[in-house]
């Protein structure tokens, strides 16, 4: 499999590997994929009171492009608002990493992970508001 230099760089030096405190009310978690399909992504974002993403961490079980896609989005997410994050399209990820056609699903999974993490933080904030 001939991967682009960018995929190889993210694969060999993955950025922002790890986890955040999932019980923190400002942390949203997105877990997508399935082990049977060969890829699972866990993306965690920490959102400040101003709605800006302060930190992002990931862990991924999957092929090289799945790891690279999730590593890349953690870089992109920091400094963005949750709404800007929600608008990230898989095509932008695929283009940035020059993913081959059979690996496009990895970028789709990364987009899904962002959406799941954003949905989680919004649900948490709503629950907090209702409780208040």
């Amino acid at each position, binding site marked *: 499999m001939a991967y682009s230099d960018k995929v190889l760089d993210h694969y060999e030096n993955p950025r922002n590997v790890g986890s955040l405190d999932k019980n923190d009310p400002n942390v949203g978690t997105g877990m997508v*994929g399935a082990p049977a399909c*060969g890829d699972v992504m866990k993306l965690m974002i920490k959102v400040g009171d101003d709605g800006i993403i302060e930190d992002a961490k990931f862990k991924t079980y999957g*092929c090289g492009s799945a790891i690279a896609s999730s590593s890349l989005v953690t870089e992109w997410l920091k400094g963005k608002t949750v709404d800007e994050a929600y608008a990230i399209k898989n095509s932008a990820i695929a283009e940035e990493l020059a993913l081959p056609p059979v690996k496009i699903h990895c970028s789709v999974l990364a987009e899904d992970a962002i959406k799941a993490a954003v949905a989680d933080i919004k649900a948490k904030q709503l629950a907090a508001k209702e409780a208040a």
Partner: protein
Amino acid sequence: MTTERKPIYLDYSATTPVDPRVAAKMIPYLTEEYGNPASRSHPYGWTAEKAVENAREEVAKLVNADPREIVWTSGATESNNLAIKGAANFYSNKGKHIITVATEHKAVIDPVRELERQGFEATFLEPDSEGLVSLEVFKAAIRPDTVLTSVMLVNNEIGVIQDIEGIGNICRENNVIFHVDAAQATGKVKIDLASLPVDLMSFSAHKTYGPKGIGALYVRRKPRIRIEAQMHGGGHERGMRSGTLATHQIVGMGEAFRIAREEMATENERIRMLRDKLLHGLQTIEETYVNGDLANRVPHNLNMSFNYVEGESLIMAVKGIAVSSGSACTSASLEPSYVLRALGRSDELAHSSIRFSIGRFTTEADVDYTIALLKEKIGKLRELSPLWEMFKDGIDISKVEWAAH
């Protein structure tokens, strides 16, 4: 110009290098003794014919057959096609049912599928969880209209050895033609066709240190087995396979099989020692599983799954060695290995599998390097793996509801 150092080759089940002794023997038949073995009117032809017949004898000797029972083909895929389609069609008036196994090579599965399209019926037996076909299961699959059975001797992915004698005896009792794909077996297990109840057997040169593009089919003479030719033309090979014989390739296969016959006993002992060292080294890593039976297995093969690590990313991480994976991501189909799935392995474990295959030129230093490399890289990838984290937190991953995609 700098050249990148090549990875250590541990993919001998995919193909082997041509032994230098084999290559040396082949070359004169390209440049000097270039005659057509079918030319009867001059010494060029006579010399080539003699070389072909010597090689035929060497191939026959390795498997204790009569040279007249050996038909040259382009490789094991062609041999399998010729045997399966050729015998099924020749004997189709006896019945139209074929038995084979779900873990066979595609070069057996696909010809059987093709026969299904032509009106045959096929049973694909499921092996047990170790990859072996039970004789009871096989016996139960036989029907009055069963005409042909095809079972491989050594599996290409997991290296397990089937009970060919047991299956062959049942075939004899039921008057069923028995074909065996032995592409992965030559030089690894002893084959005695004088005593084995086998009618047709496929061979390949390039899995046994010979060149690619040449193989052979054994066609039993007593009792005589008939097959319909699949390639028509000048009537070479007693009409079973037309086409000018590739003298240099045939000479290479003969020499490769001669070396295999003379050296396999000592070679296999050395390879078993290396494989066991690799096995024990890798078993010190947590959550590893051997795929396929270890006792009934060629010493050359080790197929292991490294749980919670995806196969393709593992292959990328171990660039220093050349191996194969059962992971979907390394195949064009995006499906994990059908062989491991037939063993009942979960998709996750199939995705996480690596086949190491050891051969004539593997050294102990290669094995030491491989063990150290795997330990390091699996640790690194598990740090990255959310599944490993869940496993360590005591979460049963099989109980989690995943959104399949």
